[in-house]
């Protein structure tokens, strides 16, 4: 039902990870995740420069219904955050793989990407 682009990698906890660009990847939540959460009303992001642990809690997305933690799919340092979400959290609903991205990480260990799911693997894991 929901969109799962083939060019991205995924976690079973519903984050997506872009391909690497100069040691940096972009992170967001999947279409399936935003659909399950419903209208987002608040996003709390990590700070630029903050060190993130693999699978550590690093952001929170809150919908009208509930708050949900976002876990870092890889370890590294926050390179950039999507400031637009502060005033427009609904971007995550409208465009989860585009304007609704959450933050970018400078990878500490590129090999961690090999442990992520591909689109088929995520579809199976999330029943999405």
């Amino acid at each position, binding site marked *: 039902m929901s969109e799962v682009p083939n060019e991205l990698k995924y976690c079973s906890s519903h984050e997506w990870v872009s391909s690497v660009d100069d040691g940096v990847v972009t992170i967001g939540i999947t279409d399936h995740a935003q659909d399950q959460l419903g209208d987002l009303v608040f996003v709390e992001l990590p700070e630029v420069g903050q060190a993130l642990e693999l699978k550590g809690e690093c952001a929170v997305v*809150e919908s009208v219904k509930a708050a949900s933690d976002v876990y870092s799919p890889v370890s590294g340092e926050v390179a950039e955050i999507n400031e637009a979400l502060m005033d427009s959290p609904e971007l995550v609903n409208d465009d989860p793989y585009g304007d609704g991205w959450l933050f970018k990480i400078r990878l500490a260990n590129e090999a961690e990407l090999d442990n992520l799911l591909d689109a088929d693997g995520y579809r199976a894991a999330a029943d999405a």
Partner: protein
Amino acid sequence: MTMKTVLNDQHRALGGRMVSFAGWDMPVHYGSQMEEHHAVRQTAGMFDVSHMLVIDLAGERTRSFLQYLLANDVARLKASGKALYSCMLNEQGGVIDDLIVYYFQDDAFRMVVNAGCADKDLAWIQQQAASFDVTITPRRDLAMIAVQGPQARDKTLPLFSSELAEAAAELSVFHAATVDDWCVARTGYTGEDGFEIMLPEAEAPVLWQALTDAGVAPCGLGARDTLRLEAGMNLYGSDMDEECSPLEAGLNWTLAWEPETRNFIGRKALEAKRNATDNKRFIGLLLEGRGVLRNHQKLFSDGVEIGEITSGGFAPTLQRSIALARVEPNMGESCTVEIRGKQVPAKVVQPPFARKGKACINLEGDKS
């Protein structure tokens, strides 16, 4: 075994996201809770509330029975069709349920109670009614549709029979008109004008479809909750329950103390606490910092815990987060709310937060 209202097929056909609520398979939204909320504040929306239970009471002593059963006084109901909001208390003064009671004739009243309380309410009412010779009839044969919003009445009236339309058009707020098995009340749970329509189950899908065709937005339980929270209306089970006195749930206005001779269930227990100085306060809160207020978040003042949020959420009309909360009686005009380990500032405001399409509170304050 999950129960289904007669409109279940309609909800599914409209893309309703179904959830289990109080044992019923109900739509939480049909795509966007936010859009449904705005539809009710700005145009018109409709809710299937057939899971709520209609209970008819009949018999010569019905009025005196209800004067004993309910904390508000049905003596206030003098015109046929007039409605009254009341709590039904236990002997300890705790709230068994909150409900609306309608007066039709001296030997015919109707109550509408919460879905989640329906079974216990019926058992309680039947037990209390034993000595009054009142006939209690649960009306599971009726469906109920709430149409709410500034355009609700205009969009709904043409769909009634001419006789009912004429009567419904004349209704004052909190009055109902009945024609045959249709009962239309100018009541609701959103802070907007509109109708709550009780009608035979078999006729409900046709009305639902006609309302859809008239451009009334189907709305789920999610929008129903954010609308009632903005309107400052309590939710049973969150804001009050059997362990909680109406004196500590902002419901003092529903307690009819006069005449002193009226003995209602729970009166004795409440009398003892009526003027107590240690009753908790029930307040509205507006979040000033960033985040979303949620049920059960703790409130602090100068590092001391002073209370808890009973209903919290994001208010789409205000684009801010609001809550109802129960706090210590000596609380000041501001506090902090613990959100994921952080203390976030909030200020006390007087509900309702939003009604009739507009904010009712001052939204000034830094949203940094």
